Each structure stands twice: as C-alpha cells, then as structure tokens.
C-alpha cells in the first residue's frame, strides 16, 4: 500500500508554499523519510469496510440564523497588516 518511498522535496515545497534553504532542505527531507517509515505501521491495519472519522462527535451542519453581530472595525481588521493604505491591504502588483 505504502511502498511509495520517493520524496520529492522540491515538489512539496511548491505545494506548501515554503522555501527551504539548502541545509534545511536536506535536514527536513531526511527527517521526513524517517517519519514516513514510522507511519508505515498504519499499513498493517485492516481497514476494509471501515468508515472514516473526520471528527469525534455526531455534530452535523451546525447552523445559526444569519444575524449581524458585533464585528471588527476596519481599523481593527487592518491593525496587524504588514502594509496598508486607504482601508486596504497593500500587496505587490499581481496582474500585468
């Protein structure tokens, strides 16, 4: 089931949106291989016809009325922004 041992660290970096410098890349890749080996243990378990558990209680579709309650002001929502101006987040140009 889990014979896949190939770990493409560069591909994972892209998926995770994390840059890893050379030595950190090697270190993390090595430890991931060791951890994935450990996770192999799961392949021993017979999971035929077993349902998945995403969470532990029978709570489904908890709904509430769509009422307006207290909310953050624009100033509060922006107070931790790395860059902001005129009630907006500033980001580099994304469309040419």
């Amino acid at each position, binding site marked *: 089931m*889990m014979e896949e041992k190939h770990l493409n660290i560069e591909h*994972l*970096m892209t998926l995770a*949106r994390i840059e890893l410098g050379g030595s950190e890349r090697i270190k993390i890749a090595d430890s*991931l291989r060791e951890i994935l080996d*450990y996770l192999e243990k799961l392949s021993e378990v017979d999971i035929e016809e077993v349902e998945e558990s995403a969470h532990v209680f029978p*709570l489904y579709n908890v709904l509430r009325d769509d009422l307006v309650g207290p909310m953050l002001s624009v100033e509060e929502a922006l107070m*931790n922004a790395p860059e902001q101006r005129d009630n907006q987040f500033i980001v580099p140009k994304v469309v040419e």
Partner: protein
Amino acid sequence: MDDRIFFKPAHQLFAMLSGREISSVELAKAVIERTKQVDREIGAFLSFDEAKTLKEAEESDARHKSGRPLSPLDGIPVGLKDLIAEKGQPLTCGSRILENFISPYDATVTERLRAAGCVLWGRLNMDEFAMGSSNENSAYKPVSNPWNLSCVPGGSSGGSAASVAAGETILALGSDTGGSIRQPAAFCGICGLKPSYGAVSRYGLVAFASSLDQIGPMGRSVEDIAALFQVIVGVDRKDSSSFPFSLPDYSAELPKFKSLKKLGVPVEYFQDGLDPEIREALERAIEFYRSAGHEIVEVSLEMTKYVMPAYYVIATAEASSNLARFDGVRYGLRSKAAKNAIDIFFKTREEGFGEEVKRRIMLGTYVLSSENFDSYYRRAQKVRTLIRNDFMRVFDEVNAIIAPVTPTVAFELGKKKFDPLQMYLCDIFTVQANMVGACAISIPCGMSSGNLPIGMQILGKPFKEHEILSLAYEFESAHGYKDLHPNI
C-alpha cells in the same frame, strides 16, 4: 509546607480576598514580583503588561469591597498560553511570524475569564504553534523546569506548566492537541485537564489541528483546576464544534465520586519503555484506589500501537491546512526579500516559521497530496474510527482508565531536540484521549529518585470531567503532592 502567598490554592486566596485579609492588587503584585525574581531563569513568560494586570486587580478589589465578586475566582491571577487571544495583547504563538501581532479581539475563554473576574496575567511561552514536547521549539527562548533548571518543562504548554509550578501565577490556561497540557503538567508536578473535545470553545485559540485541539485549565491542585474549568466550559455559538451538554457544578462534585467504581488499567501502557520509577508510582496509585474500594481491572486497548502514527498523519494534515493562513498578506510577518506576490508566500514562510513547524507543514502537505491521500490521510481517518471503537468498547466495561502520562520524567534540555521522531514519542500515552475526544487529567503521583515529578493520567468518557476530577481529588486528598513546591 511553603506558606508564601503565590503558592496558596485559589479557594484559600479567594477566602482571603473576600475577608479583606489581602487585596487582589497585593496578590497581583506578589505574582508579578515573583515572576521578576525567578523568570530570568525559568523563561515562562513571553510578555506581560503589569499596568493592565494591576488595573484588573483594582477592579476586582472594588467588587470584593462591595461584597459582589463575580465568581469564586474573582481576583485570582490566570496566565494565558500565547496562542489564546486577549484583546490588546501580543499573540505570538511562540513564532517569529506573529512577532508583532496584537489581538484585535478576545477568545471566548478570555471573555469568560473576564466575566468571572479573573486577573489576566501574562502571555506564556510555548513550542511554536504548539508543536513540540519540550518547549525548545519556542522561537524566543526555551523554558526551564522549575524542579531542575537543566531539564525541560515539557511542551507545548511548557510556559503554562512552569509558571504555575514556580508560583509565577496561580492558574494558567494551556492547550492540548496530543498531550500539550498533560505532559508538561506531569513534568512540572502540577495538575492539568484536557477537556473532552467540544467542551470548551476554541474561538480565539490559534488552530493547530482543529479536530484535536482543546483549551484546558492548569493549576497546583485538582480543586483549582475544577474551579477554572467551570469558568471556561460550555457551548459557544462562535465555535460550531462546541457541544451542548448539561454542566455539573464541578467543585461540588469533587467529593462525590468516591469508591466502588471500576477502573481500567491498560496493559499496553505498562510495557517496555516505561521508566521503572513511573511504573512503581503508578502501581502504588492503583493500589491506593484498590484499597479505597474501587475495582481494578486489566483492560486492553488493542489499537494502542497505531494511535501515534495515525495521530501524526491527521495532526500534520490539519496543521498544514490551518497554517496556510500565514501568508504575509493580511497580518504578521512579510518578508522584505520577496520580489513579487508569489514570492511573499515562500519567503515569508521560510523566514517566519521554525524548523519543526516547517517539518510538520511539509509532512501534512505530503499526506494530503493527491498521490498519497488514500494511503495516508484517508487510511489514518479509518484507523481513527477503529481507535475510537476500541476505546469505547473498553469504556463499556470501566468508568475510567488509569495510565502513565509520560514514558520518562523530564529530560535534559537539548537531549531530544535533534531527533524529531524521539520527541514525538514523548506523547505516546496522551494522544489517545485527543484521537477519541475523551477527557483526561494529569496529576502528580510521585517523585523520582532525581527529585523530578511523576504524573498519573486518568481518562474518562467524553463529558465526564466531573468523574475524573473527582477520582483525581480522591487521590490528591490522601497524598501531599499539591503542597510540594520546587526549591527556587
């Protein structure tokens, strides 16, 4: 017995506050002074706001003066792990990526502490984003164990546990995803409760693994944590996973669950790898319960060896998804090295996250990636079902389970830091409760030959906190561990 004010139990302090023997301001000053005196060595606090804390204490004094305290914890200092939002205060999560973040709102538990008149005291150190078992993953500073400064306090709520043990606060809140309240409580010789999943609102708790995280109380006695739990427990419309159930009076229930219960001892938790001194301490505790009239039965949790690997798949998968929000756009760090919009994500996350957080995000990304999803994530979720069935089957037979908290006592700083897998195995006895949503408490039950605390874990069915608190109280009342304090 150490009679200094910062080591007194909360209920006694409350009586003193009510009787005007001391003021809340005096009590706050006592923990502030204590913190200034010892925290250079311990490192439990990431920040504190002395003036704000003293102001809250003054307000409490006014209530006591008028004879109208808000709760049995009015005027009692409570420290918060630095991933629980307190409006106007830092919320670093032990990470550089949130170094300058200020909470714009209160977590629900924080609101409830305020409504109970608690005095909010300090932001407590932790492993970055609660990922770690030794507090060495804090981006700011490690924490030392007050019992032995060359040892770790455990993690990830290491600052919470150490500050309570050292008398730098009276009570604290921690969070527990795989043992992060119970393991440091055991290492530091205090009490910590991991509530049932859904018992305490997670609104305003920075998420690590949403299906496993719970906020819980930490203190020096079972009575203290029962009182703090009463304040924070209960359904919250801001957290749709919080579960409605009728709330007992936890303090009143403490003496009521005595004797004649059936307690399970899982054989899998007492095998090789358990420190012999911990085994002996647990055996003595089990003997105590037996002679007190409880029935002790051996039980088997057959899925035990799969709990840890399933946990690491699920917890890291959820973490990789939760931590995607730290992208350098709306809050927190933004890398100055980034040249374009996409670069912001990659560079900010490289600079802002520490190595363990990166490792877990990468692992979570791996198990969720399309080519591995079935063989890891889906499989782990199925295994989780089997783990839950196994646990519930045992609980058809017993009222509670007695188990160790940790395989060893507190280890030396630096000893496991460079071996992630060994560090993960620190939580081998604690992850079970998170995986099945059960409640579990850690209380001191002995001291090692090296004078380090030993913890005992009592697990209960979901929403039966009053039963395990009561069992813990029965043990505590017959032993003197709550009066033992580190010599610092």
